[in-house]
């Protein structure tokens, strides 16, 4: 499948001030390309959730936007610490977020389930001590 557009953003650990900038940029880029409506909102929400996860939980990582003719792909890849129990992490309400994240209104244990709900395709792979990679696909039918 032909890659029409790609862009990567580095997301730093614990950078709560900038958290959301990458997602805002992703949303702007997609809007310019002509993606709109429900798909744009679902990509934006999932992107913001995954970006916040990188800031709150990871040691830092990259968020990549790939646009294909019929789908938008978001890939979040970090360098650790990895998730020991993926099943538990996917459970609504389960959270290991710190006080800082909670004081900003996050860490309610909704992030991963919300990403899965918004994406048409969702895949998460994690190895403790190595890192976590989340791949999300959003179909562009009728967009």
């Amino acid at each position, binding site marked *: 499948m032909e890659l029409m557009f790609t862009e990567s953003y580095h997301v730093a650990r614990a950078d709560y001030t900038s958290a959301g900038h990458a997602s805002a940029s992703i949303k702007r880029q997609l809007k310019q390309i002509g993606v709109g409506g429900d798909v744009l909102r679902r990509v934006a*929400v999932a992107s913001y959730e995954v970006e916040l996860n990188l800031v709150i939980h990871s040691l830092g990582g990259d968020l990549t936007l790939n646009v294909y003719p019929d789908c938008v792909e978001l890939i979040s890849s970090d360098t650790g610490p990895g998730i020991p129990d993926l099943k538990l992490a996917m459970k609504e309400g389960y959270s290991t977020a710190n006080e800082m994240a909670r004081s*900003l*209104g*996050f860490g309610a244990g909704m992030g991963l389930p919300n990403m899965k*709900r918004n994406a048409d395709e969702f895949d998460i792979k994690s190895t403790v001590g190595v890192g976590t990679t989340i791949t999300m696909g959003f179909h562009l039918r009728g967009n």
Partner: protein
Amino acid sequence: MVSVLNANVLIGEDKLDTPVYTACCSDLMSDVLAFVDEKTVLITGLTNPHVVRTSEMLDLKCIVFARGKIPTEDILESADEQGLVVLATKQTAFSTCGILYEMGMRGVPVPEQWEKKDK
């Protein structure tokens, strides 16, 4: 909304005729991101930049800051760039909800999958 809440219009005086149909009251942006759609008013007591960023991601049209809280100028500027209407009321979040409910505004529908999960 402005008159019943005796609210100050901090941003978006020219967009006060934008229609909104539902409301969500939360200081938990995680919850807001999980089940709110764009025609929703966000009522919150939280005044950090993530309230505006969350609204931006969801294409929300209006934020009501309750309990007399006013966000800082940079947050308001960012809300202005997003084309949001921002109101501030001295009412508590609970009273704000009650007043808007009396006016006919309703909450965001519970997502289907949550209802299924409870059965």
